[in-house]
């Protein structure tokens, strides 16, 4: 009993404990002070961020690619969801009792996931693999700059092909909003949140219990060692990139009703996902999920108490403080040194 107590006190004193307890306290205070909608907003934003940032942290942990183009895969996802969902929506307005009323949005979201994965695979073949073949020294910096180029390329290809206007939809499912604790939340938000929780859970199960997931983690710990025990690195790299881009794509697709597709839409999820990854440390999926909710809380609280538009300033200052005092991130003690070159 006393051992347990000691352990928990030690946990509370660690950086992990302080931040988690601190954010729980902040959440409770804000909820009591301004009403439960803060909590609801935090949870829904956090679900989306968790999807994007788990993909980013996977890229960083396994492939050592500091992805700058992750937001563009978010954009690809929402764009493909738009082009799949628009004909479906036209069809369902003519046939209101078709099965597509319920399943159509899911088809669109699934399509966004598939297109995201395919885009990831294409970029692996066209961009990352040639670089890996040609030069391995200073890989982190070079691949980072390469993703910068990829990001500019994708943004402007979108503008060139699909135009710069907003391509959005009004709703996926619609219907009466649900009410939780005196807060009305639209059905779309609830469903997309449930979807993101489900996907993150599936992803976690995949990483923890399947052979491929274990192989991915093995590669992230030691690529050479993994190769010795017979893991095919190229396959793992391909799977990782497609998974991480699929996660970004599905986040974009399921949030199409909130964020319409336009060329530079990827920047905000990108900043936020980077905040999460730096905050939570690299290659730690559960840490990224926790960090996603913390950053979401920070963002919502900032918008509530400081004002809209400050949600870049306050989180980035806090993240800088984290970087100064704990460069490996809050949950990142295990995989420290992956990028330490």
């Amino acid at each position, binding site marked *: 009993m006393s051992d347990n107590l000691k352990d928990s006190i030690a946990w509370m004193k660690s950086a992990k404990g302080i931040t988690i307890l601190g954010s729980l306290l902040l959440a409770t205070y804000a909820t009591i002070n301004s009403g439960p909608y803060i909590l609801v907003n935090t949870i829904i934003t956090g679900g989306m961020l968790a999807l994007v940032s788990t993909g980013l942290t996977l890229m960083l942990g396994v492939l050592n690619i*500091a992805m700058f183009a992750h937001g563009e895969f978010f954009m690809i996802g929402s764009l493909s969801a738009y082009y799949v969902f628009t004909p479906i929506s036209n069809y369902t307005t003519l046939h209101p009792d078709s099965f597509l009323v319920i399943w159509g949005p899911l088809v669109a979201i699934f399509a966004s996931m598939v297109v995201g994965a395919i885009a990831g695979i294409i970029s692996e073949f066209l*961009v990352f693999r*040639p*670089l890996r073949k*040609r*030069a391995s020294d*200073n890989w*982190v*910096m*070079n691949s*980072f*700059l*390469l993703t*910068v*180029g*990829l*990001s*500019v*390329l994708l*943004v*402007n*290809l*979108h*503008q*060139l092909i699909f135009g*710069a206007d907003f391509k959005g939809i009004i709703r996926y499912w619609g219907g009466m909003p649900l009410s939780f604790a005196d807060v009305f939340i639209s059905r779309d938000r609830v469903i997309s949140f449930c979807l993101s929780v489900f996907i993150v859970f599936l992803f976690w199960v995949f990483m923890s219990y399947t052979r491929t997931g274990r192989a991915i983690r093995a590669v992230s710990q030691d690529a050479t060692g993994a190769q010795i025990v017979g893991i095919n690195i190229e396959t793992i790299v391909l799977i990782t990139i497609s998974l991480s881009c699929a996660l970004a794509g599905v986040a974009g697709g399921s949030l199409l009703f909130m964020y319409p597709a336009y*060329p530079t839409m990827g*920047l905000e999820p990108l*900043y936020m996902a*980077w*905040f999460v990854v*730096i905050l939570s440390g690299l290659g730690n999926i559960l840490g990224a999920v926790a960090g996603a909710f913390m950053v979401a809380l920070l963002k919502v609280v900032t918008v509530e108490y400081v*004002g809209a*538009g*400050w949600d*870049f*300033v306050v989180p*980035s*200052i806090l*993240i*800088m403080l984290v*970087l*100064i005092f704990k*460069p490996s991130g809050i949950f990142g003690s295990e995989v420290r040194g992956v*990028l*330490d*070159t």
Partner: protein
Amino acid sequence: METTKTAQSSPASGALLGKIGFNPAGILCVLLLLALPFIPPFNQEYLLRWLIYAAYIATLSVGFDFTAGFINIVNFGYAAVAGFGGYTSALLAVNFGISPWIGIFLGGANAAILGLIIGMISLRLRGIFAACLSWFFGLALMGLATKLVWLTRGPLGLRTPRMFETESNVPFYYLIIVLLILTYIICKMVVNSKVGLAFKAIGQNMDAARTSGINPVFYRVFNFTLSCALAGVIGGFYAHYYGILTPNVMHTTKTVEVLAVAYIGGRGSLWGGAVIAFPFIFLMEIVRSTLSNLPGLNLVIYALMLILVMIYYPGGFSYFFDTHVRQSKNKIIRALLNKK
């Protein structure tokens, strides 16, 4: 060709040129730039505006390469630092009536303080983490510039007094060319000294550098301070040339633009970015204005160039120049490159 002869005849002038990082070919390039406003297609005002923008990017890329190419840390908030210097100078001019000629140097000093801070807090971080930190710094600065509406007027734009009271672009052009050359000479002189050697050692292998008695703290902070100070001065020029300053000048895409030019020009060369910026920016502007029904095409080309150079020719233009032109047997070319 006059300069070539003098360089050949008197070795002393050649040595002097070498000390400030020039060879006769470089001098020829500078003369060409100085003559450009009088050569027919370029004497139109809108082409001059493009040239000024190209020179602005070229100057920033020299300062950027001073950090990225030598201590191997990408300062991802570089445009934000330049914008910070610009805002300092502009606010001083608007609120206190300080002349832009003094203001741009005060802006540079202010940006130097900022660089000192970034350099100090990024000391514990390496590589990509330092880049992230400077990126977040840039984001925070841009957020501040957008939201402190009472001070900067936010996205509405701050009207600033221009440096010359004329409609003509020619004086501005000469000013930015002078700034470009000064920036280049300052960076080159630092890099050619012992300090530059220490920078390279730190950039290649920090532990080895530390073992051989180099104190990375001083050199990294010094490098950040100097490159940010230069960015601040150039940002001041930007503010007082366009006459209007919006937070957009601090945006990450501006940094990406500078980065692309610096890397296509060749990292670690300083002059590569400055040389490549002129044809490159010019080409982009031509594509943008002639194919205006295809918006974004110029940036697609831009990004493709960056990706291709990064993968297939990481040395960039300066590497090409060093391997194919500098080894040439041709006597005239050797004379131009200041070789005996």
